C-alpha cells in the first residue's frame, strides 16, 4: 500500500543549528501514528515542514503519491493537511462556532444557521456536543482540544497532526481523545500524534517513529516494541529512575488549613483546602486542570489573598504576609507559565537569576542589589541542569523552551529553599530533563525542604513523588491509607467519585 505521506531526506536548519538531518518519514492510514523524541529532537520541526509552516532546506514531501512543495500553510491546508499545535489557537472571546469557522468561512457572509448545522453534524459524528453559541472561554481544556479536532474536520483535513494533544488533559479525557482519534483513523483519516508520553504510545498507537537529535533512529510497529526500548531509543542510553522514599519526613514545613480563595469569577475556587507538606518529602498534587490548583498556588505564594483559613510556613503564620517576604522566608516557586510568569525574556540570564530572589540575602544589601553575587548565582543556576546557553549575558529569549524551563527549575532550588512550590515543573522537558528536575527536588527535600508538585500528569506524580494527594472542585483529598500509589483509586478521586 502506498503511504499517504512520504517525506524523504528532509533537512532543515535554524541558522547554524541543524534541526533535521535527512529524515525519512512515512505514514499509512488506518491507525494512529506516533512521533516521539526529546525536546529539540526535531518532532515539531518535521511536522511544521509537513504543514508548510517551514520550508525544508532539502528533501521532498509526497502526499498520496504526488510530490508537493508547499508555498505556505494555506497551501498545505488546501491539500487536506491540518495541525493542532501544542498551544491551542482558540480565541476565548469568540463563540465556539466563530472559532470553528475562523479563517475558513468560505464566503464573505456568515451563514449562521448553515454553519451551525454542519458544525453539529461534524461534532456528533465524533460524539462531541458543543454549545456553539457559548464563549470559547467556557471550554475546559478537553473541550478546547475537541473543538480543535472539529476545526480540522471543518477544513476537511485528511491528514491530521496533533502536537502533544494530551498535555493538558486528565487520564480519562486522554483516553476519550484517543478513542476519537482511532475512530477518525478507522474512517480513513491519517492521524499523527507528536508526544513524549510513552504509555500513550504503547496503549493507543499503531506505529511509532523515534527522532533523536534531528535524525530518525527507529521506526517500529508498536506491537513489536516495548516501553523500555522506546525510552532507550529516545534518550540514547538507559534511563535510571529517581530514587524514591527518602529519609523519614520531618517537621511540617507547609501547613494549610481550611484555605478559601476567591477565583476570577468571585466564586470560591478553593473551598477550605487542608494538607501538610513535611520537611524531606516530595508531595504530588494530582487533579484535572481547573480544580483550584492555580488559586491554591497563588494563595501560597501570596499573590492572591486568602478569604479564609491559614497558611503556616515552618510553623509561623504567613497568611497575611506579603509575597516578597514569603520568598525571604524560603518559599521558592517554579511557576506554571514560564513565558508569562517565570522569566523576563528580554533580560539576560544573569538578571533572570535574581527574579523572585531579589529581596533574599545575600542578593540584597540594604537598598543595593549585589551584582557580583547575582552573577555567581546565575552561573550556579545555569550549571545545575546544564542549561544550554551562549553566555550568561545573552537574553533569555536566546534559549530554547526546554532550557528556559531548566533555568527556572534550577533557580527555585537556590538560596536555602524551605518550601518549593512547583507547578508542572517538567512542562516541556524531555525524559532526561524530567529525571534531573525530580532528582533535584528530592535533593532539596533531603536538605530539609518540603516540596509540593502540581501536575496534570498523574503517572509522572506517581512515579516521582513520595505521596500523592488530590485536588477536586476546590477541596484537597488524601487517598485512603494503602492506596497512595493506586492509580485507579487516585483517578477516581480526581473526578470526584470515591
Amino acid at each position, binding site marked *: 500500500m502506498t503511504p499517504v505521506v512520504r517525506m524523504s531526506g528532509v533537512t532543515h536548519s535554524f541558522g547554524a543549528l541543524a534541526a533535521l538531518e535527512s529524515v525519512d518519514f512515512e505514514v499509512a492510514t488506518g491507525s494512529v501514528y506516533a512521533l516521539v523524541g526529546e525536546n529539540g529532537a526535531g518532532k515539531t520541526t518535521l511536522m511544521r515542514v509537513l504543514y508548510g509552516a517551514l520550508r525544508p532546506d532539502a528533501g521532498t514531501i509526497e502526499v498520496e503519491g504526488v510530490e508537493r512543495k508547499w508555498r505556505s500553510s494555506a497551501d498545505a491546508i488546501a491539500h487536506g493537511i491540518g495541525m493542532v499545535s501544542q498551544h491551542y489557537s482558540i480565541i476565548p472571546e469568540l463563540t465556539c462556532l466563530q472559532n470553528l469557522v475562523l479563517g475558513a468561512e468560505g464566503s464573505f457572509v456568515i451563514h449562521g444557521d448553515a454553519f451551525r448545522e454542519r458544525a453539529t453534524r461534524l461534532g456528533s459524528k465524533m460524539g462531541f456536543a458543543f454549545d456553539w453559541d457559548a464563549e470559547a472561554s467556557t471550554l475546559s481544556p478537553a473541550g478546547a482540544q475537541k473543538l480543535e479536532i472539529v476545526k480540522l474536520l471543518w477544513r476537511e483535513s485528511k491528514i491530521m497532526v496533533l502536537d502533544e494533544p494530551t498535555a493538558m488533559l486528565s487520564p480519562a479525557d486522554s483516553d476519550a481523545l484517543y478513542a476519537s482519534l482511532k475512530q477518525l483513523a478507522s474512517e480513513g483519516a491519517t492521524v499523527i500524534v507528536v508526544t513524549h508520553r510513552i504509555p500513550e504510545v504503547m496503549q493507543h498507537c499503531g506505529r511509532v517513529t523515534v527522532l533523536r537529535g534531528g535524525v530518525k533512529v527507529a521506526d517500529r510497529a508498536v506491537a513489536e516494541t516495548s516501553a523500555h526500548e522506546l525510552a532507550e531509543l529516545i534518550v540514547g542510553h538507559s534511563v535510571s529512575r529517581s530514587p524514591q522514599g527518602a529519609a523519614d519526613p520531618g517537621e511540617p514545613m507547609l501547613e494549610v488549613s481550611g484555605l478559601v480563595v476567591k477565583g476570577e469569577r468571585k466564586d470560591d475556587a478553593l473551598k477550605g483546602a487542608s494538607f501538610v507538606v513535611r520537611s524531606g518529602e516530595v508531595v504530588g498534587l494530582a487533579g484535572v486542570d481547573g480544580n483550584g490548583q492555580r488559586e491554591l498556588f497563588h494563595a501560597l505564594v501570596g499573590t492572591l489573598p486568602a478569604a479564609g483559613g491559614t497558611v503556616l510556613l515552618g510553623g509561623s503564620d504567613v497568611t497575611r504576609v506579603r509575597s*516578597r517576604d514569603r520568598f525571604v522566608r524560603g518559599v521558592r516557586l517554579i*511557576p506554571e507559565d514560564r513565558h508569562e510568569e*517565570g522569566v*523576563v525574556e528580554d533580560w539576560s540570564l544573569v538578571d533572570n537569576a535574581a*527574579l523572585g530572589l*531579589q529581596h533574599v540575602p545575600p542578593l540584597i544589601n540594604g537598598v*543595593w542589589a549585589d551584582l557580583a553575587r547575582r552573577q555567581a548565582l546565575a552561573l550556579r543556576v545555569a550549571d545545575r541542569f546544564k542549561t544550554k546557553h551562549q553566555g550568561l549575558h545573552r537574553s533569555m529569549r536566546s534559549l530554547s523552551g526546554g532550557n528556559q524551563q531548566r533555568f527556572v527549575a534550577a533557580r527555585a532550588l537556590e538560596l536555602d529553599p524551605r518550601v518549593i512550590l512547583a507547578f508542572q515543573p517538567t512542562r516541556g522537558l524531555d525524559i532526561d530533563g524530567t529525571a534531573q528536575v525530580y532528582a533535584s527536588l528530592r535533593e532539596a527535600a533531603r536538605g530539609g525542604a518540603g516540596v509540593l508538585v502540581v501536575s496534570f500528569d498523574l503517572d509522572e506524580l506517581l512515579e516521582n513523588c513520595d505521596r500523592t494527594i488530590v485536588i477536586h472542585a476546590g477541596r484537597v483529598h488524601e487517598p485512603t491509607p494503602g492506596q497512595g500509589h493506586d492509580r485507579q483509586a487516585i483517578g477516581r478521586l480526581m473526578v470526584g467519585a470515591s
Partner: protein
Amino acid sequence: MKAFGWKQVALTVAAFGFVALTLIAVGVMPGEAAMELVRGSMGTKNAWNETLKLTTPLLIAGLAVFIALRAGLFNIGAEGQLLVGGLCGTVVALNVEGVLGTVLACLAGLVAGGLWALPAGLIKAYRNGHEVITTIMLNNIAAALVAGLVAGPLRQEGMSTSTEVVAESTWLPSLYENVPFRLNIALVGALLLVWGVAVWIKRTVAGYELSATGANPKAAATAGVEVKRVTVRAMTVSGALSGLAGAVQVLAYEHNFYVGFSSGFGFDALGVALLAGGSPWGAIPSALLFGALSKGTTSIQVLGVPKGLSGILLGVIIIVFAAYRYRRVKSHD
C-alpha cells in the same frame, strides 16, 4: 542588537530623502540648509549657549519619561507636569530669596509635578485606566490652569501673561562664563541626575523591580514585586522630575514664568526618551540632538525655511527609530 541590515539603511536613506524633498519643495537647497543648521546650533558661542539652554529641560524631562517608560508607562503628561512644576517653583522663588529660595523652588517643582502625575498613576494601578489618556487630559487641565493663573492672580503689573521676575539671588548661577556663552549649573545638575538614575536602575533592588514591572508585569508579580505600588511610584517620580525640569528652567534661564514658556519640552521629552534606548545615558546625546535641532531650525528660517521644519525633522527621526525598535520587538515570535 543585530548589525544594520539593508532594510535599516534603506529606511534611513528614505527618511533623509523625504526631508531633502521637503526642503526642495520650499525652495531651499538641502546641503545649504544642513550647513546652516549645524552653524546655527553649534557654530558659534551664542549658538551653543542657546542649544544648551534648550538641552537642559529636555534632558531632565527626558529622564522623567525614561523612568516611566522603564516601568512600562507612557507618560505623555510630562508637558503638563513641567508647566505646573515651573509655575509652583516660580511662586516659591518669588516669595523666598537666596539659596534657600532656590532649593525650596526646586522642591516645589518636584512636589507639584509629582502630585500632578499621581492621579494618572493611581488610576492606572487601581482602576486600569490607560495612562496615555489620563496624562493627556491632565496636560489640558495644566495648560488652562497655568494660563489662567498667569493671566490673573499671578500677573505682573503692566504685562498680560507673565509673572514677576525672580530675584537674582535666587537664580541658578552660571559655573563658567565666556559671554555670550554661559554654562549653567542646571546642566551639570541634569548630568548628575542621569548618573543617579543610571545607578539607581542598575544597582538597587527598587530599580530592578521597576524594570521587571516594565518588562513583564506578570512575571514581576509572580516574583513578589508589588506591581501596583511600583506603577504609582514610577508615575509619581516621573512627574516629579518633569516638574523639576520646569522649575529649573525658570531658575536657570527664564527667571519668570509666562504663557508659552515651554516650547513643548514635555512633548519633545517623549522623543528624547524613545531615542535614548535602554539606558539613561542615551538621554544625553538624544537631548543634545533635540536641543540642537530646535535651535538650528530657528536659525535656518533666514533661508526661508519655515520653523515647522524642526517638527518634521524630529518626527522623521522618531519614526525611523521607532521602526528599528519595533522590528526588534516583533522578531520575538
